[in-house]
């Protein structure tokens, strides 16, 4: 890591940065107010799928960039799973070199327009910002600025293609085209490898496409970032399930030297309570996939979806928020979150909770369903919920929910979306007998290299973590790409 520190220092001491620091007093910089994201009106946006956040204007971005002190020890970077050179890209914005800012982002981040939208910056870079840590002030809006620079570049029509090393003609495979796979593919291409990404679905992007709704992350934007990756020479093979369509051995026979497995989340978890298989009860994966990937709410598409007037979404994570806000947009009169702990323990981002509340989502915190009841056609119509109270913290560090005896009551619900987590996708572990997996079904890896018990197979993202964020998955992908590079180069040297 020392060379990275040296590199950052060298970059920081460049003349333009030094000049810029002198151009405004620190006191003046810290006296500026944090920029506020422009948002679509809640009562307009809850009826359509247009993006909620509208981005920053160039003027807003420039003012915000002045707040950044370009610290000698930029702690923000240590909070970024993909190690973006944050002060450098922000200072590029300050000099109005917006395209330069985007190039800086792409040095380490394959999907800046995505990360600028869906990363929990408040728990990462912005949490470790000097403003948060030492000044006890609102941090630099790093996420908003990242989005601004990426959007500016895209809208300029002058998309930069990240530089790649000379093509080394060594074939490597990436299994899954979600965030971890794309991050790994991007870095592997930069190292010069011949990269093929295998995707089981008909579209590239994984959870970015089937999971995260249009109003939070437009699909078109994911496609544009993927197009950049195609231009880097990365090949995408959709409708291809490694381990099924062809085995790892088949691919090795075709010359693939190593693989990154980012096969993601798999089987949805249900609560195993009576009536859970009634019609109108979905996993969040199914509900969101029907709408986001299959466009079920658009009459021109063949895939149907059930979405009623009283929609209950079980869970308190980002996926639950995505589901409930989608239900509202599909015309639910009552769209409810039913969560067994309190808002303090909710895993969803504060921004998502805030947006959901503004849009009229009802929050039934400290409640949990215990049974579902159907009509004569087998469609859910009501659910029994039980009140909960919080006890001592559990293994997750959050206070444990405890059911309150005899507190059950009936709630009308003609659609239920169960969003209580997923188990890792079972396809890869089933396809590789000697792959070491945990009792949970996640792949065991060396945390430094992301190498699995099968030497040529590396893994990251939800298939290793069980369930995490886009950016942590991307961090895994980058780390695994470095691990694969080292592994392949050592193998070549040994021969």
């Amino acid at each position, binding site marked *: 890591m020392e060379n990275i520190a040296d590199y950052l220092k060298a970059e920081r001491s460049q003349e333009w940065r030094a000049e810029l620091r002198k151009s405004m007093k620190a006191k003046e910089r810290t006296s500026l107010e944090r920029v506020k994201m422009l948002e679509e009106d809640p009562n307009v946006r809850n009826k359509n799928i247009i993006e909620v956040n509208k981005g920053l204007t160039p003027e807003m971005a420039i003012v915000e960039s002045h707040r950044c002190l370009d610290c000698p020890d930029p702690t923000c970077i240590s909070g970024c799973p993909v190690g973006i050179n944050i002060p450098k890209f922000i200072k590029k914005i300050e000099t109005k070199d917006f395209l330069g800012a985007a190039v800086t982002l792409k040095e380490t981040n394959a999907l800046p327009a995505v990360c600028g939208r869906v990363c929990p910056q408040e728990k990462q870079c912005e949490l470790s910002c000097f403003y948060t840590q030492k000044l006890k002030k609102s941090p630099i809006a790093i996420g908003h600025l990242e989005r601004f620079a990426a959007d500016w570049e895209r809208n300029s029509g002058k998309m930069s293609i990240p530089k790649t090393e000379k093509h080394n003609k060594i074939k490597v495979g990436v299994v899954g085209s979600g965030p971890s796979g794309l991050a790994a593919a991007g870095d592997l291409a930069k190292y010069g490898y011949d990269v093929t990404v295998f995707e*089981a*679905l*008909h579209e590239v992007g994984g959870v970015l496409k*089937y999971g995260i709704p249009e109003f939070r992350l437009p699909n078109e934007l994911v496609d544009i970032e993927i197009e950049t990756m195609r231009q880097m020479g990365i090949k995408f093979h*959709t*409708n*291809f*399930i490694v381990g*099924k*369509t*062809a*085995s790892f051995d*088949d691919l090795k026979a075709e010359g693939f030297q190593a693989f990154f497995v980012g096969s*993601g*989340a*798999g*089987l*949805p978890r*249900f609560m*195993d309570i009576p009536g*859970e*298989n*009634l*019609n*109108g009860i*979905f*996993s969040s*994966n*199914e509900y969101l*996939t*029907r709408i986001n990937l*299959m*466009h079920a709410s658009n009459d*021109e*598409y*063949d*895939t*149907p979806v*059930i979405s009623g007037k009283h929609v209950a979404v079980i869970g308190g994570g980002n996926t639950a928020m995505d589901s409930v806000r989608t239900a509202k947009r599909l015309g639910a009169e009552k769209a409810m979150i039913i969560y067994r702990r309190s808002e303090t323990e909710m895993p969803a981002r504060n921004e998502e909770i805030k947006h959901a509340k503004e849009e009229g989502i009802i929050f039934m915190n400290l409640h949990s369903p215990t049974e579902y009841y159907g009509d004569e*056609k*087998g*469609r859910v119509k009501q659910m029994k919920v039980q009140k909960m109270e919080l006890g001592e913290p559990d293994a997750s560090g959050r206070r444990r929910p405890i059911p309150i005896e005899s507190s059950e009551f009936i709630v009308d619900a003609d659609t239920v979306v169960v969003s209580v987590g997923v188990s890792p*996708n*079972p*396809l890869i572990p*089933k396809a590789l007998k000697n792959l070491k997996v945990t009792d949970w079904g996640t792949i065991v890896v060396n945390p430094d290299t992301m190498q699995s018990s099968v030497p040529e197979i590396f893994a990251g993202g939800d298939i290793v973590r069980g369930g995490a964020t886009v950016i942590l998955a991307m961090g895994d992908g980058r780390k695994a790409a470095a691990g694969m590079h080292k592994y392949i180069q050592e193998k070549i040297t040994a021969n």
Partner: protein
Amino acid sequence: MSKILEKEFFSKNVVKIVLEAPEIAKSRKPGHFVIIRIDAKGERIPLTIAWADEKKGTITLVVQKVGVTSAKLSKLNTGDEIMDVVGPLGQATHIEKVGTVLCAGGGVGVAPMLPIVDGLKKAGNRVITILAARSKDLIILEDQMRGISDEVIVMTDDGSYGKQGLVTAGMEEVIHREKVDLCFTIGPAIMMKFASLTTKKYNIPTMASLNTIMVDGTGMCGACRVSVGGKTRFVCVDGPEFDAHQVDFDEMLTRLGAYKDQEFEAYQKYLQTVEA
């Protein structure tokens, strides 16, 4: 993209399609299915592979026209392309020598039964196949089944061909006549339910290949969940074959009807556009 190399109507509403899919043809085994999507606005539907030719690089699907997607599929011609075909999916059929195996296929369920019968026969079993359908024109693949089964019994509801009666009558006949060690059943859910109830009476182990609604088909969405032995299982990755005696067929039938109204409406709309 997958090209249609051959197309043949078995009857007015049942069509056989041979698709170019070399990778799937090579890796598929009896019991596997594929997910297809006809065009950019199409839905993803699962279809069990009826046959495959590894040398030619083809897979064969047999489809009954029941809704928009199957109707669109039956209108495609040789040379046309299907946008997405992915597979092979699911667990392959567990095939071993057990003695006498009764294979009860109903309607288009006979098609995916074909490779299972073939596998069972090659493993050294005595295989008795029952082909059941509402009427004569819905009986498919009889010659092929006769070629690989020890015996074929044809049953039609209306008596227009073979013996008159339901599949269960044919099954009872065989069970009363000789010892059956194992049974396979593939067909409409309601038929499999009664086939399963029949063998349960005689304690004959029975496998049913389930055809539930799916979206991704790769173990992600849970649309295909069924109760097996009181536990929720996923047809796409745990199945499609399960111990029939443990399957909650009534729940499965209800779940298959989840989109009945929407499907009916969409089909009527489609028929209007086709006629117009």
